[in-house]
């Protein structure tokens, strides 16, 4: 669907508002049109010499017209602009809903800032089309359609002269608004640089202070600040001309009317009243003319924005329930990788090659291997954050795609490598993945994850806010909170993706102790660099370059003397060194 069609589809629920609002614009213009006519009559009456009382009538009529017009002016704005806010609301909801359906891989390839810009700046540019641009363009159309014939009926020659400069207005508007927009973009883009520079400098304050780089920072900020100033001045030179030049061109119309209309009036072809009426009509057209140029601009910009939003909304959620999904009530926790080969999209070499592995329900399996060996990729395949080729990952013996996504994920407790907590209370963060959790359950999960003591020491305990508005957790605390968040689900499958890396070994051992009892009868997948973390696992898998290099229990692998044994020896060596 083209961006325009997509945008138009959003009007569908608001057809009645749209029709009503546009009718109001029409009526506003229709009523407004009558007031110059009344004035013409008044002035011609004065020239001819009328009674005092007629002036009262004309005055009253003017007021009455204003009231009538005012009502429709109120209604048009109230209807159309409200509608634009409704559409904005719908669009924003749809956009966010769509984001929720997009897979993990999407977020790895799109920057947050970019998505934010689409959901905010672009959306408000689109809203400008739907609201003000629509309203003003309709207004321009109606006022032209109604007023121009009125003017022509006075004198078409005069009308032609008055409109002679109008093409200039349109051309100038187009020319300048495009140029202004381009230079404005340049300014905005560069402003991003300025903020980045400042942001980094503020975020890295400790490093800057420690290395006494304040002066260098100030100087480097001055440079970007100066460049920003230069670009702004470039913008000003062109944006400053826009309004005055419009005024100049519009003024030409009035000058033509004064000159030629004056001639006609002197000659007696038109009355003084008609001369005045004509001036007033031309006056009525000034704003619609300017609005026209403005609207074109808003429309172009808004459509570009709509294109950017539609682009995201057109991304098909690659991972969702398909027809293959079966009615599965529960998961036992058996996982099988059957000759699994996985490519990241756009990558020529596979991240995982020929992985054959069957994990029985209730087993604890550990994964070790160097950075980039494919451990995290393998972990992400289980909750379908990434999708493996069909038939290569099986849960309880059935292809993973046959398991409803919701059931699959709710059966998994997942602690990712990079911990993410929401700016919520600690308690709510822990209870994030369960329908309703009692404080008791939250506390138990916290204890099991070894973070209960820390939380008790927070100013408001479990009600302490996390993040910018609350307290900053250390890396280890974050990881433990994330573990609690996974454990409270009592998952059939627990995945710890290097989730203990920032936890000290003492706490780690404590957590592992708890895990052994909680995870009895449940499947655990544990990724780690530390032999200490993995050595008690039922099965240890050593990955190398996306392949399973070795597998077996700790003792088996040590006996075999391969990569794992080497790793173990290195770590053992450290210990021996220490003991010496």
């Amino acid at each position, binding site marked *: 669907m083209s961006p325009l069609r997509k945008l138009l589809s959003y009007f569908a629920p608001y057809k009645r508002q749209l029709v009503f609002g546009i009718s109001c614009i029409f009526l506003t213009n229709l009523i407004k049109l009558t007031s110059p006519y009344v004035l013409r009559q008044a002035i011609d009456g*004065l020239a001819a010499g009328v009674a005092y009382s007629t002036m009262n009538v004309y005055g009253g009529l003017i007021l009455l017209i204003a009231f009538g017009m005012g009502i429709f002016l109120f209604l048009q704005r109230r209807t159309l602009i409200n509608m634009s806010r409704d559409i904005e*609301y719908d669009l924003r909801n749809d956009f966010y809903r769509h984001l929720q359906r997009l897979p993990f891989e999407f977020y790895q390839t799109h920057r947050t800032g970019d998505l934010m810009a689409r959901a905010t700046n672009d959306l408000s540019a689109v809203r400008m089309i739907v609201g003000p641009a629509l309203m003003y363009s309709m207004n321009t159309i109606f006022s032209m359609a109604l007023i121009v014939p009125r003017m022509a009926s006075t004198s078409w020659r005069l009308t032609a002269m008055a409109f002679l400069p109008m093409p200039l207005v349109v051309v100038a508007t187009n020319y300048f608004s495009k140029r202004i927009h381009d230079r404005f973009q340049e300014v905005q883009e560069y402003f991003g640089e300025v903020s980045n520079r400042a942001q980094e400098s503020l975020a890295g304050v400790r490093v800057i202070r420690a290395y006494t780089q304040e002066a260098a920072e100030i100087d480097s900020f001055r440079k970007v600040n100066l460049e920003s100033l230069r670009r702004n001045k470039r913008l000003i030179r062109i944006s400053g001309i826009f309004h005055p030049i419009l005024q100049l061109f519009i003024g030409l119309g009035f000058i033509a009317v004064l000159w030629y209309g004056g001639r006609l009036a002197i000659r007696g072809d038109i009355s003084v009243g008609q001369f005045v009426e004509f001036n007033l009509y031309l006056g009525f057209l000034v704003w619609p003319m300017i609005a026209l140029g403005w609207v074109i601009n808003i429309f172009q910009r808004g459509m570009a924005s709509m294109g950017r939003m539609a682009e995201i909304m057109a991304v098909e959620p690659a991972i969702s329930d398909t027809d293959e999904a079966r009615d599965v009530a529960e998961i036992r926790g058996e996982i099988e990788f059957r000759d699994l080969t996985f490519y990241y999209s756009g990558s020529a070499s596979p991240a995982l090659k020929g992985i054959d592995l069957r994990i029985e329900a209730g087993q604890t399996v550990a994964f070790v291997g160097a950075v980039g060996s494919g451990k995290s990729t393998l972990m992400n395949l289980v909750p379908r954050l990434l999708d493996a080729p069909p038939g290569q990952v099986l849960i309880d013996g059935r292809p993973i795609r046959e398991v409803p996504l919701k059931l699959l994920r709710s059966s998994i407790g997942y602690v990712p490598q990079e911990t993410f907590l929401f700016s919520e209370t600690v308690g709510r963060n822990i209870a994030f993945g369960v329908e309703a959790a009692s404080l008791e359950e939250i506390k138990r999960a916290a204890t099991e994850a070894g973070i209960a003591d820390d939380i008790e020491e927070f100013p408001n305990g479990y009600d302490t806010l996390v993040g910018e508005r609350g307290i900053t957790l250390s890396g280890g605390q974050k990881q433990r909170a994330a573990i609690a968040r996974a454990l409270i689900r009592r998952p059939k499958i627990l995945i710890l993706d290097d989730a203990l890396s920032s936890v*000290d070994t003492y706490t780690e051992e404590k957590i592992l102790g708890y895990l052994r009892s909680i995870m009895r009868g449940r499947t655990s997948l544990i990724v780690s660099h530390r032999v200490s973390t993995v050595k008690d696992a039922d099965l240890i898998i050593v990955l190398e370059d996306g392949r399973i290099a070795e597998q077996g229990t700790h003792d088996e692998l040590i006996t075999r003397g391969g990569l794992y044994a080497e790793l173990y020896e290195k770590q053992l060596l450290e210990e021996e060194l220490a003991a010496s």
Partner: protein
Amino acid sequence: MADSQQEEEVLGKAYDSRLMRRLLRYLWPYKWYALTSLVLTILSAPLVLAGPPLTKAAIDIFIAPDPSRPPAGFALFLKQAADRLGFSGSAYEGVAFIAIIFLLANIAAFIVQYTQAVVMQAMGQYIMFDLRREIFTHLQKLSVDFYDRNPVGRLMTRLTTDVDALNEMFTAGVIAIFGDVAMIAYIAIWMFQVNWKLALVSFAILPLLAALTTWFRLGARSAFREVRVRIARINAFLQEHITGMPVVQMFNREEKEMRKFDEINDAHRKSNIDTIFYYAVFYPAVEIIGSLGIALIIWYGGNQVIRGVATIGTLVAFIQLARSFYEPISDISEKYNILQAAMASSERIFKLMDEPVTIASPEKPVAIGRAQGRIEFRDVWFAYKGEDWILKNVSFTVEPGERVAFVGHTGAGKTTITNLLLRFYDVQRGQILLDGTDIRQIDLQELRSNFSIVLQDVFLFSGDVASNIRLGNGEIDDERLRHAAREVHADAFIKRLPEGYATELRERGAGLSVGQKQLISFARALAFDPRILILDEATSSIDTETEILIRDAVERLIADRTSIVIAHRLSTIQSVDKIIVMHKGEIREMGTHQDLLARRGLYWRLYQLQFYQDYKNTLAESIADD
């Protein structure tokens, strides 16, 4: 912190003389710009409004002359000018003359307005430049504890949105208000001298207009405040949920989060619709009041014309001007918001600029130059907040060239010690000495230039690898930079990067492993060749290959200099001269590795826990009871 959030949302008055005086100081360097702009603005009023007086003259002299009322004032002047310049042949020529004057005025208006716009906007940009520079410079002086209290996002708002609001005020606000006032004054004066009675009648509606704008201002203000709050919520929600989307999906929270989003989205819509109401009433009401004015002019002026007191041209000009009259007035009321926002912004900016520099160099510093590296903590007490002591009566000395490791549980106060050494914070009691001098008596730059620090979380800047090692220090040439990188084993992997040392680091070093980032920060520390090295070892586990490189790099880092290490690695602890064991803000044990082991105290237990996994559960419990 909740109230500081609200602080962003409060809007106060639109004019505060104290703030304004202070703001004017920023305008002062550009007073000629301001003055030029002001003069041009005032000048543009009669030029922009040339139409009505000229139309009046054209009607009264040439189109519908009233023989009983010969032209007077401006009309007479025009007639005489037309006669003198040879446009006296006929009424046609007269109208042509007036049209030419109109054209000239129009062109002049164009030139004046354009010049004015450029001068004024340029001034605004210069002021913004100055403000940003000043704020940024001040931020560079503020101590670390200020940054603990103020999230970066909020400080960024000062530099961006708030400065922008002030620019708006200086350009669209103050000078435009003068322009609007000039416009009103010009119209009023012209009307009065043409026909003061009709002028008074025309002004009769001003109170109504004033009442309307006041209502609009007050109503729209609170409605807009609400909108700002709502949009901020939406942005915060989106930011967080886009970043944490995998978590949302993993924990099946899509529906709940969608409901939450819908709620805040709807609240935003509602608050916007509230503002629409004010606009929807305001514009028609302005029209109606304007038409009331026209009705009055027709009623009263029409009678004047019939009585022969006023001309038709006067009536027409008044009607035309009646419309121009109300434009600047409603314009002024719009400016109210700009002023209000600017006052609120300037209040926040000034608050930031008034933030005292709590940690600064002494006025008469004791020069130490390149330190020998003797460090002493003497009865140091320290709390980040109130009486919540993080360090309690801590005393120790580190001799030049000595290597000291701090060990202890999280929260024992290890990191605080390094923060205090660099004077990120000042101690509450006791003192810290470097080479026997209290660090508070040493020039801050001089003090810190004796240290290099490696933090647990490596902070990388955007820019290339080289600039991340060198930072802004021009003294570190390529030679020294590469030497440092080679020493800490960073050279090898840097060379393998696409463009070597010139490789741009995306998003704070995304794409580099944790270990590689650490090696870069080691190179940075070494390149600065400090007397004293502070190393806060990262706890996160790294693959064994890098681990070995790091171990060796640490060795080289701490060679030949005083070094203070917050140790998590056994290898590091092994090679130090002295180990200080911290527990709950106090020093519990001090000595060499062997001494401490022999003592079988806290260190021994920590050691057992950390490096021997086969500990007995009973032992673990005994620690937990501790």
